C-alpha cells in the first residue's frame, strides 16, 4: 500500500481586482503518494501553474486568495499553518523549480551563495559545511568543476546549466516533494531531454515525489505515473498515464492528444487544433466549461456542470457522456482524417 504524501481537496483560488473576480482554480482535487510523479497538463491559462504555486502558498496576496479547499501534506493542513511554519516547509519539504532559469536565479549573487542560503535557512550548519554540501549538490546535478563554478554568477552559465543550478537549490534540503513548473519549456530540445533525465535520476536518489506541470504531453508520458488534465481551472480528467494515453475519455483530452506532434503526422496537413479559446474566468460559467469548444456538446452541456465520474479504477472524467457512442464518433472522426490524409 503506497503511502500518501499530498492530498488536495476542492482547491479554489481567486484573483480579485476591483469588481471582477477571476476564478483561476475552481475545485481541484488530487492525491499524490510518496515517490510518485504526477503530471498536470493543460493549455495556457488553465490554472496549472496557479494550482502549483498555491501548494506553497506563494500566490501573491492580494490580489490572489485561496478561497476554499484543503491541502494536506503528510496530514498537516498547509492552509492552516502560520507564516513561520509555512517557511519551514518551503524549500525544505516542498521545493519548486520555475519555467525560465534565466530569470529565476538572482543575477547579483553567486550560485554558491544562493544554494548555501537555501541550505542554511533550514539546517543549522556552518558556512563551510554548507559550502561543501553546495559543491556536492552542483556535482550531483552534473556541473563540471563545481569548486570553481560555485563562485560564479548566473549570467556565466548557459540556460541548461542554470536549470541544473535551480534543481540543485531545490533538492539541497532533500525535499519530499518537488514542484516543477514547466522546467523544460524555456530550454532547447536536446537540453530538455538532459534535464528530464537528470530529474528522473535524482528522484531515485532523493526519493522525491514530483508534480510536473507542462503542456508537453511527451514529457508526461516519459516521466509521470499519473496525469491531471486541467481546463479553465477545473480538472476534466485524471488517471494513470496508461489510462490517459490508451483510453482517454474527455473530448478536451482527445483534442490535446490529437494536436501532439507525432511521427505519423502528415507534413502536408496542418496539425489539428482545438478551435476557439478558453472561457473568460471572470465570468460565471454555467454548465461544462469546455462545452463551447466541444464538438460533441449537447444542450445539457451548456446548462449543467458535469460531475467527476469514475469510469474505471482511479480513472475519473468530468463529462455528461460516457457512452460508447461518443468514442465511436471520435473513431469516425479519426478515420475521416485518415481518409483525407490517404
Amino acid at each position: 500500500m503506497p503511502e500518501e504524501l499530498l492530498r488536495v481537496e476542492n482547491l479554489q483560488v481567486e484573483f480579485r481586482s476591483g469588481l471582477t473576480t477571476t476564478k483561476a482554480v475552481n475545485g481541484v482535487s488530487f492525491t499524490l503518494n510518496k515517490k510518485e510523479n504526477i503530471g498536470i497538463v493543460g493549455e495556457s491559462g488553465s490554472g496549472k501553474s496557479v494550482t502549483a504555486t498555491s501548494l506553497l502558498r506563494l500566490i501573491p496576496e492580494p490580489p490572489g486568495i485561496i478561497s476554499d479547499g484543503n491541502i494536506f501534506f503528510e496530514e498537516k493542513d498547509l492552509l492552516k499553518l502560520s507564516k513561520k511554519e509555512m517557511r519551514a516547509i518551503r524549500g525544505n519539504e516542498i521545493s519548486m523549480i520555475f519555467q525560465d532559469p534565466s530569470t529565476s536565479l538572482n543575477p547579483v549573487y553567486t550560485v554558491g551563495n544562493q544554494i548555501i542560503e537555501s541550505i542554511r535557512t533550514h539546517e543549522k550548519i556552518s558556512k563551510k559545511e554548507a559550502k561543501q554540501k553546495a559543491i556536492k549538490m552542483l556535482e550531483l546535478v552534473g556541473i563540471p568543476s563545481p569548486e570553481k563554478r560555485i563562485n560564479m554568477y548566473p549570467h556565466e552559465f548557459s540556460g541548461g546549466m542554470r536549470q541544473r543550478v535551480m534543481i540543485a537549490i531545490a533538492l539541497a534540503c532533500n525535499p519530499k516533494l518537488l514542484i516543477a513548473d514547466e522546467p523544460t519549456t524555456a530550454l532547447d530540445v536536446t537540453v530538455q531531454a538532459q534535464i528530464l533525465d537528470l530529474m528522473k535520476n535524482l528522484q531515485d536518489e532523493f526519493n522525491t515525489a514530483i508534480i510536473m506541470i507542462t503542456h508537453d504531453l511527451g514529457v508526461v508520458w516519459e516521466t509521470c505515473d499519473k496525469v491531471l488534465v486541467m481546463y479553465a481551472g477545473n480538472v476534466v480528467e485524471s488517471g494513470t498515464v496508461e489510462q490517459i494515453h490508451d483510453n482517454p475519455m474527455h473530448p478536451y483530452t482527445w483534442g490535446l492528444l490529437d494536436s501532439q506532434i507525432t511521427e505519423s503526422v502528415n507534413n502536408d496537413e496542418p496539425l489539428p487544433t482545438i478551435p476557439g479559446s478558453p472561457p473568460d474566468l471572470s465570468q460565471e460559467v454555467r454548465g461544462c466549461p469546455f462545452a463551447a469548444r466541444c464538438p460533441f456538446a449537447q444542450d445539457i452541456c451548456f446548462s449543467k456542470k458535469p460531475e467527476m465520474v469514475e469510469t474505471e479504477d482511479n480513472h475519473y472524467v468530468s463529462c455528461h457522456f460516457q457512452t460508447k457512442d461518443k468514442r465511436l464518433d471520435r473513431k469516425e472522426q479519426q478515420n475521416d482524417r485518415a481518409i483525407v490524409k490517404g
Partner: protein
Amino acid sequence: MGKYIIKRIINMIPTLLIVAIIVFLITRMIPGDPAAVMLGPQASVQEVEKLTEELGLNKPLHIQFFDYIGNLLQGDFGNSLTYNQPIADLIMDRFPNTVILAISALIIAIMIGVPAGIISATRQNSILDYTVTTISLIGVSMPVFWLGVMLVLYFSVNLGWFPSTGMGSMDEGFFTFIRHLILPSLTLATIPMSQFARITRSSMLEVVSQDYVKTARSKGVREFIVICKHAFKNAFTPLLTVMGLQISSLLGGAVLTETIFSWPGMGLLIIDAIEKRDFVVVQGTVLFIALIFVVVNLVVDILYKVVNPKINYSSNKGGTS
C-alpha cells in the same frame, strides 16, 4: 579594473580643462569692472586704472587665459581680491563646513528616504504607500528657500528650540554643534530624501515581481531577507546614480541653504565672491566643484560593478546587458 580607473583619471583632464575655459570666459563676460567694484564709488579713475593693471585685466584675453592656465598647472589657483588669501586656503577653510552639512543631510536622506521607498513598494496601493508618495512628491517640489525660512520661523522664532543662523563650533560643546546643524541639514535633506524615496519605490516595484524573488520565497527565506537582500540589491543601481548626483551637488555647496542659515560653506563663499566680482574666487571654486563631480562620478561607476556583477569594465566585449 585598475586599467579602467587609470583611463578614467586621465579622461578627467580634458573635462576639467573645458570647465576652466568656460568659467574663465564667463567671469570675463560678467558686466561690472572688478577693480571699480572693489575700490568703491569714491575711487578716482587713476586708482581704478592702477588696480586693473595690477590684476592683469588690461592684458589681451588670450594672454590672461594662458597666465591663468599656467598658474593652475603649477597648482596656483590665484589669490582672492577681497580676502587677500590664496584660493586654495579659502576653499580648505570652507569645504569642511560644507562636508559636515552635506554628510548630515545625506544621512537623514538615506536613513528616511530609502526605507520609506522600500516600505511603500512592498505595500503598494496601501494608505502607507499613498502617504509616502504624496509626501515625497511635495518634498521634491518644495522650494528650499521657503522651507528653510518656515523651519526657522517655527522652530527658532516661535519655539526657540534651535538657533536660526550660524555654525556652532565643537569648542562650544557637541550639543551646541548639533543644535546648529539640525535645521540646515533638514532643509538640505528634503529634496534628496524625497527623490531617494521615489526612486527606491519605483525600482523596487520593478524588482519585487521578478522570478528570482519568487525563488527566494520558495526557498523558505524570511520576507525581510527576501526584500532587503534579494530585491533591494537588484533595485539599487538607479538609486546609486541619483545618490551620486546628489552627493556631488551637496558637496559643491548648498547656496540657498547656506545663505538662509549663514552657514560658512562653499555656497556662501561663491555667492559672496559673485557679489563682490571676485572673479578669481569664482574661477577657483567652480573648478573645484567640477572636480568633485568628476571624482564622485568615477566612484559611482566603480560602485556599479560592486552592485551588478554583470558589468565588466576590463574587456571591450563585456559591457552591460
